C-alpha cells in the first residue's frame, strides 16, 4: 500500500510529466489565445501547444480597427499584436474548429483533421451580428466591423467619399464609427432603436450626454426608430434605408453595428454549458458541462467565457472587454498546469474604454448592475466628469468622460464594496450631487433562449439536454 507521501509525490510527478510532454490546444487565435499561449510557456509548460484560428492572420488587436484604421492612418494589416515571449506553438491559422469530441479528446477542424488534446482552452470569442436580412446584408456597401478584413473594406468605402454613411445601432462601435466619419468630413446618420446612444452599457442619463455629443459634432442622430429594410440599386449597391417611422435615408455606405454573437456553434453536441450566452465556467476558468458540473480538462477565456462574479452577487457575467481577455487567459493558463491548492481565481474588476468625438469614455465595474447614478466630479457641459453607479446603497461601477485619471480611485472603492453615493475625492465637485435613476432598459425583454430539459432518474443517469427553442 502506498504511503500518503508517495501518493502526493506520484500526483506531482504526473503534473511534471504533463508539463513536459502533454498536449494543449487553444481554439481561438486572438488576444485571449495569444496571451494564454504566452502564459502557458511562462508557467513552464514545455509540451506540444497548438493554436487554432479561423482567420488566416496572426493574433491582432481589434480596438484600433474602429478608430485609427477607419480614419485611414493605420492600415488594417498593421494591427498585429506583440509577443511577450517565444511561444513555440503549432499555429493552425485559416482553419476553423468545427467540433469537439470530449470522449475522444479531439478538436475537429473544417478540413476534416482532428487535433488531440489533453487540455483544451476555448477562446473563440464573438463575431459581429449581421444585418438580419441576408440579401440586404449582401449588398455592396453594407458592412459590419469586427475583423481586419471588415475594417479594410469599410476604410476603403469611407475613403471613397460616400455622400452619406448610415450607421444602424449606437453602441460603442457604432458611435466610434460615427465619430470617425465626422472626422473625415462625411455626412452620417445614426439610427438607434433605443432612446439614446450607449444606453445598454451606460444607461439613459449618460446616453443623453452621448446624444448631445453626437449632435454637436453634426451627426444626424435618430433615436427611438429602427431600420426596416435596405434598398439596393440595379448594380447591387445599397442606396437607401427605410425607417420604422416611414422616413427614408439615402446612404451609399451602411454599417450594421448591432452587437455580437458568441462563437459557440462548433461546441454543439459536445455536452458543455455552451449556447448563445457563451460558455459557462467557474471563476477559475474551468468549463461547466451541460449539467453544470465543472470539467477538469476544458478551460474558457475571453469574450466567450461566462463565470460567476463575487462582487456582483455571484451572477454569471460575460465581459466582452480587452482586459478580460488578457487576465482571463493568464488565469486559465495558470490553472491548466496547476493543482488545486495553487489555482487562481479570475476576479477582474471589469473595465473598458471608448474614444469618440474627442472624448475618452472609460468605465470600471458593471454599470448596468446599478440602478442609480450620481455625478461626483467635473462638469457635464464641459464633458469632463466622473459619475458613479449604485445599487441598494452600494457602489457598483463608475464612468468617466475625459477624467480617466480618477477611475482608479473609484475602482478601489468598488473593490472594497464602498457605500453609494461614494465619498467624493474632495474637490472639483459638481453643484448637484443627488443620485438619480440611471435609466437602464428593462432587462426583462423576451429572448429566445433554448430550453434545457432534465432526463433520467438515478443519479448516474440524471442529466440535462438542450431542446431547440419552440417557434
Amino acid at each position, binding site marked *: 500500500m502506498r504511503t500518503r507521501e508517495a501518493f502526493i509525490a506520484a500526483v506531482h510527478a504526473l503534473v511534471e510529466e504533463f508539463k513536459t510532454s502533454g498536449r494543449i490546444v487553444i481554439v481561438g487565435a486572438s488576444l485571449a489565445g495569444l496571451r494564454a499561449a504566452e502564459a502557458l510557456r511562462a508557467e513552464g509548460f514545455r509540451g506540444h501547444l497548438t493554436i487554432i484560428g479561423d482567420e488566416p492572420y496572426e493574433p491582432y488587436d481589434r480596438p484600433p480597427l474602429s478608430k485609427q484604421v477607419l480614419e485611414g492612418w493605420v492600415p488594417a494589416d*498593421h494591427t498585429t499584436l506583440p509577443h511577450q515571449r517565444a511561444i513555440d506553438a503549432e499555429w493552425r491559422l485559416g482553419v476553423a474548429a468545427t467540433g469537439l469530441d470530449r470522449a475522444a479528446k479531439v478538436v475537429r477542424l473544417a478540413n476534416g483533421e482532428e487535433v488531440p488534446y489533453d487540455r483544451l482552452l476555448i477562446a473563440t470569442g464573438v463575431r459581429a451580428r449581421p444585418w438580419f436580412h441576408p440579401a440586404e446584408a449582401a449588398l455592396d456597401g453594407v458592412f459590419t466591423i469586427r475583423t481586419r478584413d471588415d475594417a479594410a473594406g469599410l476604410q476603403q468605402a469611407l475613403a471613397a467619399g460616400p455622400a452619406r454613411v448610415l450607421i444602424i445601432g449606437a453602441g460603442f462601435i457604432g458611435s466610434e464609427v460615427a465619430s470617425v466619419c465626422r472626422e473625415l468630413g462625411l455626412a452620417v446618420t445614426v439610427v438607434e432603436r433605443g432612446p439614446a446612444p450607449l444606453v445598454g452599457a451606460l444607461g439613459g442619463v449618460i446616453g443623453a450626454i452621448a446624444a448631445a455629443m453626437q449632435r454637436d459634432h453634426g451627426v444626424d442622430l435618430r433615436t427611438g426608430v429602427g431600420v426596416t429594410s435596405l434598398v439596393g440599386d440595379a448594380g447591387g449597391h445599397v442606396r437607401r434605408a427605410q425607417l420604422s417611422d416611414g422616413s427614408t435615408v439615402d446612404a451609399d455606405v451602411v454599417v450594421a453595428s448591432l452587437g455580437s454573437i458568441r462563437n459557440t456553434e462548433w461546441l454543439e453536441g459536445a455536452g458543455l454549458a455552451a449556447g448563445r450566452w457563451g460558455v459557462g465556467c467557474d471563476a477559475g476558468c474551468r468549463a461547466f458541462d451541460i449539467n453544470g458540473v465543472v470539467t477538469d480538462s476544458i478551460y474558457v477565456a475571453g469574450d466567450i467565457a461566462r463565470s460567476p462574479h463575487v462582487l456582483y452577487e455571484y451572477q454569471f457575467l460575460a465581459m466582452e472587454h480587452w482586459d478580460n481577455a488578457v487576465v482571463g487567459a493568464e488565469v486559465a493558463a495558470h490553472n491548466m498546469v496547476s493543482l488545486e491548492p495553487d489555482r487562481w481565481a479570475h476576479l477582474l474588476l471589469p473595465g473598458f474604454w471608448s474614444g469618440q468625438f*474627442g472624448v475618452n469614455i472609460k468605465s470600471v465595474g458593471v454599470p448596468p448592475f446599478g440602478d442609480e447614478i450620481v455625478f461626483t466630479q467635473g462638469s457635464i457641459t464641459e464633458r469632463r466628469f466622473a459619475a458613479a453607479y449604485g445599487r441598494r446603497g452600494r457602489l457598483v461601477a463608475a464612468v468617466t468622460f475625459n*477624467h480617466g485619471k480618477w477611475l482608479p480611485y473609484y475602482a478601489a472603492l468598488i473593490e472594497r464594496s464602498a457605500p453609494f453615493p461614494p465619498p467624493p475625492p474632495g474637490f472639483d465637485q459638481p453643484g448637484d450631487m443627488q443620485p438619480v435613476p440611471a435609466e437602464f432598459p428593462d432587462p426583462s425583454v423576451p429572448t429566445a433562449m433554448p430550453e434545457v430539459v432534465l432526463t433520467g432518474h438515478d443519479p448516474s443517469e440524471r442529466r440535462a439536454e438542450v431542446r431547440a427553442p419552440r417557434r
Partner: protein
Amino acid sequence: MEPTGQTTIVRRRRPLRLVVDLNRCQGYAQCVFLAPEVFRLSGEEALRYDPNPDEALRLRVMRAAAACPVQAILVDHGDAGEAGGAS
C-alpha cells in the same frame, strides 16, 4: 519562415509591434511627445497609436514605453513572427 537547417541570425525587416493597454492609459501623453509618429491624442485624453510602426522608430517607441507613467505600452519581445500564415 521555413527552417533551413542552418544556424543563421536573420534580421527581419518587419514592423515593430506594440500594444497599449488603454484601460491602464490615463492620457499623460508622454508617448505623444516622445514618438509623435506613433502616438496621437484624439481630444484631451483618448490615445490612438500605430500598432506596427516602422522598425526604424524602435528607439523612440522604447523611450516612450519607458516614460509612460502607468507603464501601459507593451513592445514586442523581438522574436515574434513565428506564426506562419495559413496552414
